[in-house]
């Protein structure tokens, strides 16, 4: 039984497969041979012939009958057998489901066969390929959509690529130009030198000296600007800097404090005129200068303004005998009579106009750079003071200072001592003192030099000390005779030049105080010079073996000198035959007299008393020497000649 069935299945499936494929695809038939049998059965099952038209049903019925005919007697016999089996063993038969399926498959195959035969005959039915027009309208919107999406995606990608390119470009450019043109590195460098802080979007810096103790109210703020608008494609200038600073307009340009001392007071019309002469600044390139130089210049302007503000405040506050005058940008003070100290603030901005006027008004160079420098030092000292007094912890109830200042009773300071401790000397007072000292010093030097050039004999030598103070300096004055420096060292003066006066210290310790008037110094030196000559004769006499008979620095006899006193000396020759008397006055000059022995005086009237020969050894009268006609280049040399002429020849 089973063998027969198997044979049938194989035959039917091969046959049905072909048919099935034609129905679906039209062309492809043999690609899926075996598994399609099941598929075929299912598809056949789906065909619901009962729902077809009446004619179809009839045809189907006819076909069925044909199929049964075609199947032959064998199949009908099978049907009978199977029915019998089902009756006996309804559910236990193992091949039951197979058989059922096969049967239904057979039925369907038969139906299919019928359909196909009908289709083949083309009597009642034809199979045409399904028209393709129906599909495109359905797919069209989707492709359109696809295309449009593709396009928009491409657009979006383009935007993204562009953005990425820009980002990478900026990153690489930053790396390339890191050394020179990176804003952040410049900012870092700026930060290391200046105080910066961020306010909103801006970066503000501070160039005031407030952190150093300044109390100047100017805020001194500058702004940091990112200067990156430059076109990267074009050639970048050499000095290009991505960082720029914006300084306040009143701090632009350059400024300095001009300190000068003038001999006579200017006419009042000149007062307060702004003499803005410009110092030759270091040649800056036409481009914008580097921020560091810019900021330093601005800070300098600020400091100059602060110094000037402080000075003018003090000038107004301080009461002095001759009031200080503050006009516009100038402070005028009179340290000495007929002498004026002017301190002016010169501030020139960089614009052309002021430069032009500055070059026109070039005034003579009487600027005291030392005093300008000292003003800067003083203001810094002032800053330091305020800073330290603020910073230090100190008792709130008492001023900070020496412990004795807070004591009471017998150990307490009195008012004067406390006052002396609290030196409340202002900037102006200090600078005036310094100016006085500088002026006094230069005048002393001028006096000495003029004396030295005017008077050749004796010589004046001045040796300035290299150790000075702002308020004191010293000079050593030597009065010598040329050629006799070693023996004539009598006069050595130490001049200590102070602020108001000059203290003269002699070699023997005498101290003389001179005022600031130059005449006093001159007179003093003249009298010293005249004394020197007499001292020189004394020294010379010692060397030559002459005897000093009398010596006086201040002679009370003779004509009265207007300056000092005349001095005199009398020396006798070693043999005692001759005597030389010298009188030297600062004004009257020198007068030299020689005393001869009586024996050499022919015109002496014979005396009745001195008859004896021994009296010839007495000295005779004095005779004046025509000093001008003596040979010799200076006084001491002449004196030496005279002495040697009067000494007896030993050989």
């Amino acid at each position, binding site marked *: 039984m089973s063998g027969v069935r198997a044979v049938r299945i194989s035959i039917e499936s091969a046959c049905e497969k072909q048919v099935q494929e034609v129905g679906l695809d039209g062309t492809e038939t043999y690609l899926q041979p075996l598994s399609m049998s099941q598929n075929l059965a299912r598809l056949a099952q789906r065909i619901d012939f009962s729902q077809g038209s009446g004619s179809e049903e009839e045809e189907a019925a006819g076909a069925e009958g044909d199929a049964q005919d075609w199947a032959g007697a064998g199949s009908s016999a099978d049907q009978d057998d199977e029915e019998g089996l089902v009756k006996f063993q309804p559910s236990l038969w193992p091949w039951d489901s197979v058989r059922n399926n096969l049967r239904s498959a057979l039925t369907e195959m038969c139906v299919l066969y019928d359909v196909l035969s009908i289709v083949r005959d083309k009597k009642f039915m034809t199979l045409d390929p399904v028209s393709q027009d129906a599909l495109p309208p359905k797919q069209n*919107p*989707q492709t*359109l*959509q*696809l295309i*449009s*999406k593709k*396009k*928009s*995606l491409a*657009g*979006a*990608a*383009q*935007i*993204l690529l*562009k*953005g*990425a390119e*820009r*980002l990478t470009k*900026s990153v690489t450019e930053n790396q390339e130009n890191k050394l020179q043109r990176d804003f*952040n590195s410049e*900012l*870092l460098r700026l*930060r*290391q*030198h200046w105080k*910066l*802080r*961020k306010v909103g979007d801006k*970066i503000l810096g501070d160039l005031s000296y407030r952190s150093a103790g300044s109390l100047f109210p100017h805020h001194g703020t500058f702004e940091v600007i990112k200067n990156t608008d430059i076109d990267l494609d074009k050639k970048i200038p050499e000095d290009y800097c991505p960082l720029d600073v914006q300084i306040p307009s009143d701090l632009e340009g350059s400024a300095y404090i001009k300190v000068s001392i003038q001999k006579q007071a200017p006419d009042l019309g000149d007062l307060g005129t702004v003499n803005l002469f410009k110092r030759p600044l270091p040649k800056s390139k036409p481009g914008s200068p580097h921020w560091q130089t810019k900021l330093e210049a601005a800070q300098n302007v600020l400091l100059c303004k602060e110094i000037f503000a402080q000075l003018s405040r003090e000038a107004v506050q301080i009461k002095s005998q001759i009031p200080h005058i503050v006009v516009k940008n100038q402070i005028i003070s009179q340290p000495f009579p007929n002498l004026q100290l002017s301190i002016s603030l010169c501030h020139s901005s960089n614009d052309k106009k002021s430069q032009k006027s500055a070059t026109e008004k070039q005034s003579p160079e009487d600027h005291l750079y030392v005093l300008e420098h000292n003003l800067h030092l003083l203001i810094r000292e002032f800053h330091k003071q305020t800073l330290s007094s603020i910073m230090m912890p100190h008792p709130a109830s008492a001023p900070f200072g020496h412990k004795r200042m807070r004591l009471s009773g017998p150990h307490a300071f009195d008012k004067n001592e406390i006052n002396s401790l609290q030196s409340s000397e202002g900037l102006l007072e200090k600078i005036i003192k310094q100016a006085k000292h500088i002026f006094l010093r230069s005048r002393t030097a001028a006096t000495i*030099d003029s004396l*030295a*050039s005017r008077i050749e004999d004796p*010589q*004046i*030598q*001045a*040796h*300035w*000390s*290299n150790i000075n103070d702002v308020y004191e300096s010293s000079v050593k004055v030597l009065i010598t005779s*040329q050629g006799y420096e070693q023996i004539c060292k009598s006069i050595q003066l130490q001049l200590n030049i102070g602020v108001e006066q000059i203290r003269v210290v002699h070699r023997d310790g005498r101290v003389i105080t001179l005022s600031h008037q130059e005449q006093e110094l001159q007179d003093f030196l003249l009298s010293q010079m005249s004394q020197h000559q007499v001292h020189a004769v004394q020294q010379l006499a010692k060397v030559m073996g002459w005897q000093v008979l009398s010596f006086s620095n201040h002679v009370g006899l003779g004509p009265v000198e207007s300056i000092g006193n005349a001095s005199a000396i009398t020396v006798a020759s070693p043999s005692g035959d001759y005597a030389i008397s010298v009188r030297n006055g600062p004004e009257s000059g020198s007068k030299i007299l020689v005393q001869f022995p009586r024996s050499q005086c022919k015109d002496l009237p014979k005396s009745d008393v001195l008859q004896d020969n021994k009296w010839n050894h007495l000295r005779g009268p004095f005779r004046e020497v025509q000093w001008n006609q003596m040979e010799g280049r200076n006084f001491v040399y002449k004196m030496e000649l005279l002495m040697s002429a009067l000494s007896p020849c030993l050989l």
Partner: protein
Amino acid sequence: MAQQRALPQSKETLLQSYNKRLKDDVKSIMDNFTEIIKTAKIEDETQVSRATQGEQDNYEMHVRAANIVRAGESLMKLVSDLKQFLILNDFPSVNEAIDQRNQQLHALQDECDRKLVALRDEASIDLYELEEEFYSSRYR
């Protein structure tokens, strides 16, 4: 943490805002990208006409792409802002720089002082002889 707490309030908030900006920007990149991908999907049923829909999608994608780029730029800006913040508020390094500069200037000052003193001594020795010569010469 202690350092963080020591920062003043404004700095704290500033740092937080930087953090927020970073997160926002990254999130924006992510969101916009996902939205673009979502928009790229072809959908059958639309309530508006296909042309309008296409145009809208196109526009949306462009805007979203631009948003991504903007977020990227914003991140770059954030980086530069952070650098600036660090530069301006990095007080230890600033103090170090100041110390270094201080030392440098002190060294310079010492050197200048030394040179000046040497110069002064030398000049004063020469000056003494010159003065001697000058005052005994004919040119005084």
